[in-house]
């Protein structure tokens, strides 16, 4: 039974895993860094909390958590039957929820029901896995709370090297969207649980952002500065994610506005034209705040992140339009504030415009 192995061996796994990580040193660290961008920085920024609060389905970029691997030929003591009664060899897309010192406290993700699907991403690979087991918790992994154990075949599908059930490292987890006609048509009796964002200490997007784009101008002022060439200079003191958002904006300044433009592409692409939502999403992706394949209209962004204005970034979204302020500088697709508001195209605008009718949202931690 996987949970038995997980419980009995979890402390040893933690210690041995730490030793392995330390022993492999720069090589493994480099691997993790290449896979997760600034994974080690994320780890340093995250709190070693015992568990996490899962975000609502299909929102945000998911959450970085600590994971271990179990089962397989090098770990025969784990057995093959999960605590749910499932034969894990027959259903290899399985994970165990961990936590605490007893099986009753294996609730590091809130005590998910069996068969709860999670999209688990390691590096460039991701897979849907289902909870079919539980196990005991343990020390944090790279500063991230240890919340789940990956069945070894699942880990293999993700490209995680098999280390006789001793691998540990960060993975990104996200609840997939709800399925079924009732959910898709918004007719289910019980709405999806409200998004409860993890604390900024657990997940600071500024420290989890992709690598900064080269060449972004920097200013020593507190606010972003609009330069004569239409680009924006980022405050030197701004979090990395903010500088990356500005850099991503500078990539597409001056692109023509076309309704529907920029949609249907990976957010890393530079499209020939953008509309309001695709332009904003390009910037948010640049800051590591949206996944590569995110693609939604402006109305969807009404539920982005958390409500209200942010310290550095504030989106104003409605069903018809979305714009944002980044370090005090407005990103918009037209000169809504009238004469003197810069170009009529996509880009940075020097004037503040009315936000009546828009929902103010901001990324967690920004």
């Amino acid at each position, binding site marked *: 039974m996987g949970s038995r192995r997980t419980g009995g061996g979890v402390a040893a796994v933690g210690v041995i895993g730490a030793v392995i990580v330390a022993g492999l040193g720069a090589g493994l660290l480099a691997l993790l860094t290449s896979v997760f961008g600034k994974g080690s920085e994320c780890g340093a920024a995250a709190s070693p909390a015992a568990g996490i609060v899962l975000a609502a389905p299909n929102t945000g970029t998911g959450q970085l958590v600590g994971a271990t691997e179990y089962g397989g030929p090098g770990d025969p003591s784990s057995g093959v039957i999960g605590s749910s009664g499932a034969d894990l060899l027959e259903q290899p897309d399985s994970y165990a929820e961990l936590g605490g010192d007893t099986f009753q406290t294996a609730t590091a993700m809130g005590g998910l029901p069996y068969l709860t699907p999670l999209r688990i991403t390691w590096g460039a690979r991701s897979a849907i896995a289902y909870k079919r087991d539980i196990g005991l918790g343990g020390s944090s992994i790279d500063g991230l709370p240890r919340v789940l154990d990956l069945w070894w075949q699942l880990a293999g599908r993700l490209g995680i090297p098999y280390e006789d059930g001793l691998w540990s490292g960060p993975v990104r987890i996200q609840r*997939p969207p709800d399925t079924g006609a009732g959910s898709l048509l918004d007719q289910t009796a019980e709405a999806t649980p409200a998004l409860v964002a993890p604390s900024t200490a657990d997940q600071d997007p500024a420290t989890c952002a992709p690598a900064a784009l080269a060449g972004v101008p920097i200013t020593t002022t507190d606010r972003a500065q609009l330069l004569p060439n239409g680009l924006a200079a980022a405050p030197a003191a701004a979090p990395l994610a903010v500088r990356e958002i500005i850099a991503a904006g500078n990539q597409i300044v001056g692109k023509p506005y076309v309704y529907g433009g920029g949609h249907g592409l990976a957010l890393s692409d530079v499209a020939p034209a953008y509309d309001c939502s695709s332009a904003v999403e390009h910037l948010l992706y640049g800051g590591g705040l949206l996944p590569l394949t995110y693609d939604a209209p402006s109305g969807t962004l009404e539920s982005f992140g958390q409500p209200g204005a942010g310290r550095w970034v504030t989106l104003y979204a409605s069903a018809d339009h979305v714009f944002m302020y980044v370090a005090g500088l407005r990103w918009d697709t037209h000169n809504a504030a009238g004469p003197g508001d810069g170009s009529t195209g996509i880009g940075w605008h020097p004037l503040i415009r009315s936000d009546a009718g828009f929902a103010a949202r901001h990324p967690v931690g920004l």
Partner: protein
Amino acid sequence: MTRLCLVLLIGALVCAGCGGHAARPAPSPVARADDTHEYPSAPPAPQTATHVTSTATEAIRAFVTAYINWDAQTVSDDMRTLAARSVGQARAAMMLAAAQTTGDYELQRGGISNSGTVEAVAPLVGHDREYVVVTRESTRATNTTAYQGLQPAWHVALATVAEQRAGEWVVSDWQPEN
């Protein structure tokens, strides 16, 4: 004599007042709505479903099969058809779904489709004409990876039926639970 005149005069005034009041036009519907907080109108015509079946479970199976099998291109029309084939809250819910899916950007752009089978229809104990419906459904998408890898899932809904005429059953209430 003076008193008699006074009484007659008052009587005449009262009668004139009554007559004058009776001659005033009836209040407009808006004025009546101000008083009653309900705009007066004729009661709605009874709803008639365009498609009926001879048993309650057949009505539910037909309704649910159509409800869970659609793609982004057909869903609005499918829901509109279901609205015509149902009555009451079920019809209202289907009309709402038809309207919402017509402009559902994510549904269209994602190329989302749903398919499934009706696995069970069972009477809800203690509730006349109410049934529990179990389906097994898969959601797919052609233009997004969000649903990739998700297995078919079980879903439960409550359905209520009505007898339109003797032996003519239709779905009158539909409430998906998950």
